[in-house]
Each structure stands twice: as structure tokens, then as C-alpha cells.
């Protein structure tokens, strides 16, 4: 499903809790997982602007100039500017310079909304004179009801490194703006010359840094997407269901936008207040291969709400919901927990009975973006 930027009507229509599309303009609506708190829509791969709003600053007194052979300790302040009151979890902070990555030890792990925490980055002994860039890459996460979205954010600061030679100290007094013409006093301006200051100078004000999303680090660091194949699954990914009869599958081009998950189970797709108050998006039925009829005896091993499929951290996940559990790639999964699904994964809803019903996952990708996820039913019971 092609995603288009939201219009003003979309935010209004998103308040109708069960809508997947804007009724006025037809745009796909992707809600933040904490929509009940932030009321915010998100882009297919982006962070919620209300929940994840970090700001990084250089603390007052930071020294950004040093000499060869010395270490430098740079104090930073990380602020959680979330307007929705959502806490921000900091999983890791890494300082990257030319010589490699240095993890920053953090005694804390969470920042409440509208509050800040400080940390200090200590460099290795500086080896060569000149200018060196120091990149700060932080892995930040927002959690809500068992789900977690993680993102990489990065900022860069520049360190000046002088040689260890002795330098001349020059005293400068700024005399500009001296206006002295009353009370019998005479203005006496004194000219002075500016000389480059080689001594380390501590900053007198807190300096805000451009702390931006660092998508390029997310796949290599395993934060989002699939490292194997360099793929991302956006929230707007389409699903196709080959092998399912029409009555058991959603219409072509279905997305998970409506409820954030794709509910799969024995329950039918048609809503009925008395008999089927919680319909499935994808109905899982076991068919008799000879007659084509639904096998009632085997069907009892599939719960009405058996499992959910959801997209989290640009990866497809399965959440077992049924008491009988299920099997993924031969591994038994029980209720609860969130498990990642890779390209080629196989879901067996009735553990140990692959011949009765199995779902094969296939990714159809272009330019590193998964456009369609095929969930193929085996044995096939439809087109």
C-alpha cells in the first residue's frame, strides 16, 4: 500500500478508533502504538514525534580542545522532550571516532518526559594534532504494553587537538562600546589585537546539538530491520494470502494499519455481536483434503484467536495468543512473548502436524524495502 503524507483531515479521522483509512481523503492511517496517550500518527518507518523526542546538548563547561597525548572528558545532557509524557528508554550510547567505537557506561536507563540525564564521554588519548570528529550514536526505545520500538539517533561534535608545544598566552580585554562622555570624563579607547587562543577554553553556555535519526546505523547495529539481506519491513507493507479461500482471507492489499496487528485464528472474519464479537483478520481452518470440507476435529486445536502478526522495529513478528501454542521453524512457541519472523519462516498452527496446516512466509522486496509479505497456505485450499 502506497503511503502518502497525512493531511489535516487524517488526524481528525484517526480519532475514530477502528478506521484504517481516512474517510475524507482515503490515506492510509498508521497510528503510534501508544496512540491512546499521544494521539499521534506515524510514518511507515519513522518514530512517533510525540513519544520519541530526544534532544542532546553539550553541557556548560565542556572543553572541546586538547593536546596530543591527553584524554578529553566531554559532558553531555540528553533531554526527553516528549510532549505526550512518554518516558524514553536509553539502551546504549556509543562514541565513534576514527579509531573505533567506545561504549559509554550508563548508570541509568530511562528518562522521564520533560526531564534530562547527563553522561560523560571520555576519549582515548588523542594521537594526532588537528581536528577530529566524534560521533555520538544512541539507541533509544519507547515501550508500550509489551511492545517496543527502537531507533538510533546520532550527533557529531568536533574536537580540536593541538601539538604539545608551549604556546603563548595572550590577554585580551574587549574595549569596544566604551561610551564615556559625561561628568567631565573623557573617552579613552584602547586598540587591541586578536590572537588565536590555543589554550583549552570551556564553553560558558549549554550548546544544543543537532541530534537526528541515524537510520544508517540501525540495520548494521541490529536495532531495526533485517541485517541479513539489508531489508526493512515498513508499517505500510501489504499482505497477500495465496492458497486461502476468499472467505478466510482479507481483501488483496490488506495492511496492519487498522489495529496495528493482523489477528489470525479459528474465528470467522464476519463480525457478529453474539457469536463472533472478535473476528479474525485471517481465518485458520483445517480442510479435509479429500472432501474439501472443514475438519471439525482438527479445528479444535486452533484457538479462536491463535496468534497475531505485527510489524515492529521494521521486522515482522508473531505473538502467540492461543493456549495450544504454535510452531515456528520447528520450534515450539507458547503463549506470550514476541518472536521475530524472517524471510522463509514457516508457521505451523497445530504443533507437530505440519501436514494439516502450515503457513510459509515470503518477502517480496525492492531496493531494500519489503513491499509485500506473502503468507502462503499449505496445503492450498483456494487460489
Amino acid at each position, binding site marked *: *500500500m502506497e503511503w502518502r503524507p497525512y493531511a489535516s483531515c487524517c488526524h481528525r*479521522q484517526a*480519532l*475514530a*478508533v*477502528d*478506521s*484504517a*483509512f*481516512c*474517510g*475524507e*481523503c*482515503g490515506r*492510509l492511517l498508521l497510528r503510534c502504538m501508544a496512540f*491512546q*496517550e499521544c*494521539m499521534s500518527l506515524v510514518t511507515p518507518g519513522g518514530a512517533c514525534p510525540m513519544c520519541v523526542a530526544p534532544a542532546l546538548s553539550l*553541557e*556548560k*563547561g*565542556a*572543553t572541546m580542545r586538547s593536546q596530543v597525548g*591527553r*584524554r*578529553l*572528558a*566531554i*559532558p553531555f545532557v540528553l533531554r526527553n522532550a516528549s510532549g505526550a509524557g512518554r518516558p524514553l528508554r536509553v539502551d546504549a550510547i556509543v562514541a565513534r571516532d576514527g579509531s573505533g567505537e567506545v561504549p559509554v557506561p550508563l548508570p541509568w536507563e530511562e528518562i522521564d518526559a520533560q526531564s534530562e540525564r547527563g553522561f*560523560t564521554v*571520555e576519549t582515548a588519548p588523542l594521537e594526532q594534532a588537528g581536528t577530529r570528529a566524534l560521533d555520538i550514536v544512541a539507541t533509544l526505545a519507547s515501550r508500550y504494553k509489551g511492545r517496543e520500538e527502537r531507533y538510533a539517533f546520532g550527533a557529531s561534535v568536533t574536537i580540536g587537538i593541538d601539538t604539545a608545544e608551549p604556546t603563548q598566552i595572550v*590577554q585580551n*580585554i*574587549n*574595549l569596544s562600546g*566604551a*561610551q*564615556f*562622555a*559625561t*561628568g*567631565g*570624563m*573623557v*573617552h*579613552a579607547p*584602547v586598540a587591541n589585537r586578536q590572537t588565536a587562543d590555543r*589554550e*583549552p577554553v*570551556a564553553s*560558558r553556555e549549554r550548546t544544543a546539538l543537532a541530534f537526528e535519526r541515524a537510520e544508517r546505523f540501525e540495520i548494521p547495529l541490529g536495532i531495526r530491520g533485517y541485517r541479513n539481506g539489508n531489508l526493512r519491513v515498513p508499517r505500510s507493507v501489504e499482505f497477500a494470502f495465496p492458497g486461502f479461500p476468499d472467505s478466510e482471507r482479507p*481483501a488483496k492489499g490488506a495492511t496492519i494499519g*487498522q489495529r496495528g496487528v493482523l489477528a489470525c485464528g479459528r474465528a470467522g472474519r464476519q*463480525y457478529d*455481536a453474539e457469536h463472533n*464479537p472478535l473476528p479474525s483478520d485471517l481465518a485458520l481452518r483445517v480442510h479435509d483434503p479429500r472432501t474439501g470440507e472443514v475438519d471439525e476435529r482438527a479445528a479444535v486445536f486452533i484457538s479462536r484467536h491463535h496468534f497475531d502478526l505485527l510489524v515492529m522495529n521494521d521486522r515482522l513478528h508473531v505473538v502467540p495468543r492461543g493456549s495450544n501454542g504454535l510452531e515456528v521453524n520447528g520450534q515450539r512457541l507458547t503463549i506470550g512473548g514476541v518472536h521475530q519472523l524472517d524471510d522463509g519462516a514457516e508457521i505451523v498452527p497445530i504443533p507437530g502436524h505440519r501436514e494439516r496446516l502450515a503457513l510459509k512466509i515470503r518477502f517480496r522486496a525492492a531496493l531494500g524495502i519489503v513491499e509485500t509479505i506473502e503468507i502462503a497456505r499449505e496445503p492450498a485450499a483456494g487460489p
Partner: protein
Amino acid sequence: MAASTLTLSDDQLLGEYVALDRFRGFIEQRLAIGPDLLALLIRDGQIVTAAHGANVGVGGFWRGIKDALFGRHALRLLIADLKPFQLRSAVEAVTQDHVQVAGELTIDLQVNPERPANVLGLMKDRSNVTKANVLERISPHLGDRVLEATVRRVNALDLRGNVAMQDKVQSEVMREVERIAGDLGLLVRSVALRWAFNEDEIAAIRKRAREREQEMAELDFRILERSIAREGESTILQLRTDLDVEKVKAASEAELRRMILDQELGFVDARETGIRIEQMKVLRHELDLAGAERRDRLVAEIEAADHAIALARERGALQGVDLANDEVLRRYQITAARLRMELREVERSVEDADTRQALALKRLEELQNLEIAEKAREQQIRGMRDLQGLEISGERDRLDLEIKGGDAEHQRRMEAKRLETAAEAEKLRLMREMSPDLVLAINAGVSPAVANVLVEQARARAGDTAEKMQLMRDMIEQSREARIATEAQARHFFEQGMQGAAGVAQGVGNAAAVARGDMPQAAGGGSVECAACHRNVPATDRFCRYCGRPMRA
């Protein structure tokens, strides 16, 4: 007209008021203030201007006449030092491994030349302010907030040369001084800490010194041992060499010839000796052969004698044969005993020499062991004394810290109780000003935002107070069941669900069905079925909100 230069009256002063009246006179005086000083002119209680350096004209005839005619201005001139100055303060802190450390904090300060007028905040009512006054003002804020907090994260042995920690202290001190005196025009240029030797470092230095002493003793011992061995080896070599040298010295020409002759004779002797040895070997072989023959013969004789004895015994003539036999046997026994005795003597002399040598070695080894044990015992006693002293000191520090920690915990608990009581009182005070229905809603556990919406709804719908309160209770119950948490949800809920003709209860009960799209929306005035997903959507929608299909052309 020559100008006199005004400076601060003392190098320790940071700022000082200058009494201009003492320069007033009939003749105008020119006063120059250097560019490194701040000149702040206050006329009639107001700052006229401030600048770096100035030239001031005071008094004079015409100004005197002007003052007499139009009144005299109250002039006051403040001069302050703009040059950076250094303050030093002794500091104490406790490290992460609970070692007390002391040091000297050096702060480079400067009056902010960009905000010169703010220096008035330092002056108060005094006629001057010294640099020491500034230190008194800021030093209490740097103890626990900066130094203790920073040093607490570092071990005692990691303090020295820790540039990163110095940077951190500098940053923290700058922030503190900015907080305390930033608006008074004080700037921190740099901060440095110099540490005295702490107990851990002293212990490490002592330990290293003792290790060095031990290493030196070991080295001396090895050198001594080696020198004794070398001396022994060289003495033997020297003795041999001396003997050879003496021999050569003593040898005259005749003796040398004789020696050569001796060597020739030795050669001849050796040759003859070899011949003789061969001859002797032949003779020995012959002797052995003869001996063997003789022995065999004797054995045969003995056997014959034994046979004869046996026969004689048998014949009854035993006595004579026994005597001859006993004599032969006794002779053999005497010879064998003599040979055994000689052999034993030789063995005993060898054993005796071995025993003496072993005893001497044993004695030497015992003496050496005793000496080493004595030294080790002394070392152990010294180590135990030091260790005991360290343990006592550590225990004392630990007890002090426990007492201090207990006091701090008690203070924290008291403070928490006090804050809790204050918060409860504040809540009661705020609720006193609220309306009864708002208090009812908040006490029912609904969030303040939702409570406000409920109050608005109830106010709009109900007439009298009793009806409003009853409606309010119903709405609170409904909002709890629907788990409404935010203001936007509450508004959406009541707009969509509660405005229908079915009333409040029916609206909530059918909310799920409405949300599923299987029930017409009351507000939209009708619904239509989507041809793709067969769900009911409001007739006003241009697209199906469930599958995105366009609803009309």
C-alpha cells in the same frame, strides 16, 4: 595639564569606591584610569556609564561656580580590576574506595568585561571588596555539590594525573559559579586541582620502597653468593697456576734437560711397561690356569678326602681324617677373614669420609636455613604490624561513615514525610476550591482532564443540582467501564456515544458495534455498505474507512 593615575589601593582588592571629593579644588585635576580597570560612574545614585579605562576631570574654577549656582551632583566612582585573578582553597573529599584525600583547588576568575555594571552586586555597602571575599562567597557551594560528587566516583589511586576528572570538575565548578555569581559579573576561566598524597598512595609508595629494599637485598645476596663462588674457583685456578709457575721458575736448564730426559725415559719406561704388562698378563693367565688346575686338584683331593673320610667313618677310623680336614679348613677360613677385614677397613675409611662431608654440608645448610627463617620472621612481624594498623584505621573510617550514613537516612525520611504531608494538605486546599461534582469525579479515580469533560457534559445536560449529580455519577461509572483516560477520548466518546436518542447507557453499550462499522452512525445521518469489504460506513465518507475504497465518484 598632567594627569595622575588612579589604581586600586591594594593588589588584593577586586573593586573599590574612589572618593572624588578629595580631588575637588580650585584647579581642575585630571585622573587617568588604566584600560585594565573598570570605571563605573554613579551620578546622583544612578549609573551614568561604565567603561574600561577612563580619563576624569575633577574640580576647577568654572565647575565650582556651576556647582554653587545650580547645585552640586553627588558623584561616586567605582573602579574594579578586570584582569583575571587566581584563588586557592584547600579541599577535602572521600574517594570511591573510602580514602580521605586532601588537595588544593585553584580557580582562575575574572570580572565579566562584557557586563561591567553587574560588579556592583559584589560591593554591598563596603567601600571595597577583596578577592578573598569572593572565595568566601563561592567556596561553600563547591564542597559536596562538586568535589565530593566527582571524587566519590574515582578510586584514590586513580586521582593523580586524571585529566578527564579535572575537566569534569572544571565543568561543574563553572556551572556552580555561574549559578551563584554569574549575574554578579564573575566568570570562571579555568579550574585545577592539585592533590596531596593520600593514604593509599603513601601505602603504595611505602610498599614499593620495601619491595625495592627486598630486591636490593636479594641482589646483594646473589652478588655475594656469586663472588664467593667466583673467589673459590679463582683460588683453585690460582693455586694451580701458581704451582705451575713455581715449577717453571724453579726449573734450571739442567733441570729442563733432565725433565726432557725424564720424559724420554718415561717414554721408554712406558714402552717397557707396556711390554711387561703384556708379559704379566701372559704370566697371570698362566698363574690363573695353574691356580685353577691346582684348585681343581685340591677340590678333587678334598672330595677324595671327603670320600676317604666318609669311608673311614664308615670304617670306624674317623678321628685322624677329621683332624687333617679341620686344619685345611681353618687355614682357608683365616685367609678369607683377613681379606674381609682389609676390605672392611677400606670401606670404613670411605664411609667415614662421606659422613664427615655430609655432616659439614648439613651443618652449612642448617645455618643458612636458620638465617633465612629469621629474616622471614622479622619481615612477617613487620607486615602484620602494618596490616593491623591499616585494619584498625579502616574499621574506624567505616564506623564513622556508618554513623554519618545513618544520620543522612534519618534526615531523608523526615524530609519525605514532610513533603508527603505538604502534598496532602495542598491537595485538600485545591479540592476546597473545586465544585462538588469535580471533587466527586476526581475522587472516583478519573483523571482531571476526563473529569472536566464529564463536568461540562453534566452541566450542559442537567437542570437542577440533584439531577446533575446523579447524571455525573452515571457518567463516571460509564467512563470507568469504557476505560477512558484522556480528554480527547472522553470528548470523542461522549460526542459519538452519548448524544444519541438512546441515552447514555445505550450509547456506551453500542459503542463497540458502532466502532466495528456494523451499525449506522447516529451523528452522520445514515450509512452505506462498502462494496469491497461489505462494512457499513457513514454516508458522508468519501472513502471506506476500513479498506480505503472510494465510496463515490
